């Protein structure tokens, strides 16, 4: 497990989450290696966020397991989280804090102090173009800025694993482009999982796409292979996720 540079940074094995009455995530397995950008696709309620929450160690799985850099998210939660940058759904932040204060808080929790903390915070703000609003309370910012604050928090410690739940939601086209560029630039060094509704994004940044529907994994293939199967990604997505109803 883990250790060698060649081992997958994210390993998900038979991950299952059952809520009262239904199974949100049903026996999903996959792994992500360094250099891969995995696009996580699926209709609303398919289980994308639930899978990411389990991977981030927020929600305990009902069955199965997930490992980040070899550390089990249930048995060694702190070790797993140290190697993870996570942007939760909706990019939650503390509204009364300033951008710089909030980033310094997450940096301090991650063990950075003094000049290193200042450098990391400044670097994260530079990556996400937040310098202009660094002393503004987060509640006064627009949706796009808030999303970037969440993103900056995930990048602050330069983690080998990034799990981003809808990183470009609420951004304008220029900001979307910037974030995609940023992901592409970081890709060779990291294992990245992004969930998205926007199919063009998969073609633009992902090296691999997974589609889940009703908690089950239905496709795991590079975007180019998916596109060959239909006239467009949209078609393929519709066919695969609506498949069972049409049949």
């Amino acid at each position, binding site marked *: 497990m883990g250790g060698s540079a060649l081992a997958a940074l994210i390993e998900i094995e038979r991950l299952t989450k059952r809520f009262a009455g239904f199974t949100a995530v049903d026996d999903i397995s996959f792994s992500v290696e360094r250099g891969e950008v995995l696009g996580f696709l699926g209709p609303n309620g398919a289980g994308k966020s639930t899978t990411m*929450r389990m991977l*981030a*160690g*927020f*929600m*305990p799985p009902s069955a199965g397991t997930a490992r980040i850099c070899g550390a089990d998210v249930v048995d060694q*939660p*702190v*070790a797993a*989280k*140290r190697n*993870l940058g*996570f942007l*939760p*759904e*909706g990019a*939650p*932040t*503390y*509204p*009364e*804090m300033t951008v710089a*204060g909030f980033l310094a*808080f*997450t940096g*301090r*929790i*991650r*063990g950075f102090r003094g000049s290193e903390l200042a450098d990391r915070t400044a670097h994260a703000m530079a990556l996400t173009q937040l310098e202009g609003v660094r002393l503004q*309370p987060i509640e006064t910012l627009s949706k796009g800025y808030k999303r970037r604050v*969440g993103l900056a*928090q995930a990048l602050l410690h330069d983690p080998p694993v990034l799990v981003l739940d809808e990183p470009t939601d609420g951004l304008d086209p220029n900001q979307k482009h910037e974030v995609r560029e940023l992901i592409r630039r970081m890709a060779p060094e990291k294992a990245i999982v992004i969930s998205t509704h926007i199919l063009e994004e998969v073609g633009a940044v992902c090296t691999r796409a997974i589609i889940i529907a009703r908690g089950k994994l239905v496709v795991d293939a590079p975007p180019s292979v998916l596109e060959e199967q239909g006239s467009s990604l949209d078609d393929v997505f519709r066919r695969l996720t609506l498949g069972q109803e049409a049949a």
Partner: protein
Amino acid sequence: MRAALTVARRELAGYFATPVASVFIVIFLVLAGALTFTLGNFFGRGQADLIPFFSFVPWLFLFLVPALTMRLWAEERRQGTIELLLTLPLPQWAAVLGKFLAAWAFCGIALALTFPLWITVNLLGSPDNGVILSGYVGCLLVAGAYLALGAAVSALTRNQVIAFVLAVALCFLFAAAGSPVVTEFLNSRLPVLAEIARGLSVADRFGGFTRGIIAARDIIYFASFIGFFLFMNAVVLDHRKAD
């Protein structure tokens, strides 16, 4: 521990960045002052001590502390920040302890701001300042006990009204357990329970502190009370954090 202190620092700054701090402190000071001078008959008693003040503090905390704790976890859930906080690399107990320490420090600040009362008795007479200090220690411990209980309750529900009402009810249970009404009632039916009720009573333990007695068993009582409910808080949080 460092992570817990980082969480505590953020939380405490959060109180002062929102109106929570000013409203809580002003109401606490106004009520504490008013009760001490009117119902407590501070001047009329002709005694240089803070007994009238200390006798009201636990009852004020009974309502004000749950108002502080009801939002502790509910607010994190509402804003979704619980998902952020608990996916940062810190053990869960550190998050629980950090939030508790911040709220406790905040209560300490509110208590410290009653210092004009202390100045007043010292100007008017020569009180035993050791007894006064021990009374303040007692107040702080009562606040800690109520805070730990309230925080555990707030982890249980996302609804702040339910968290408040439940916390007040439970705090009241521990406050009133040693009162004559309860113990005499129990004494006449089940004398064993009367002893237990007196043993669990926050008010009884607090009484010792206001008389200037800091007993080891009272300290142990408050420490285990706080420890138990912080542990409950962590357990409940683990089971319900994603609800």
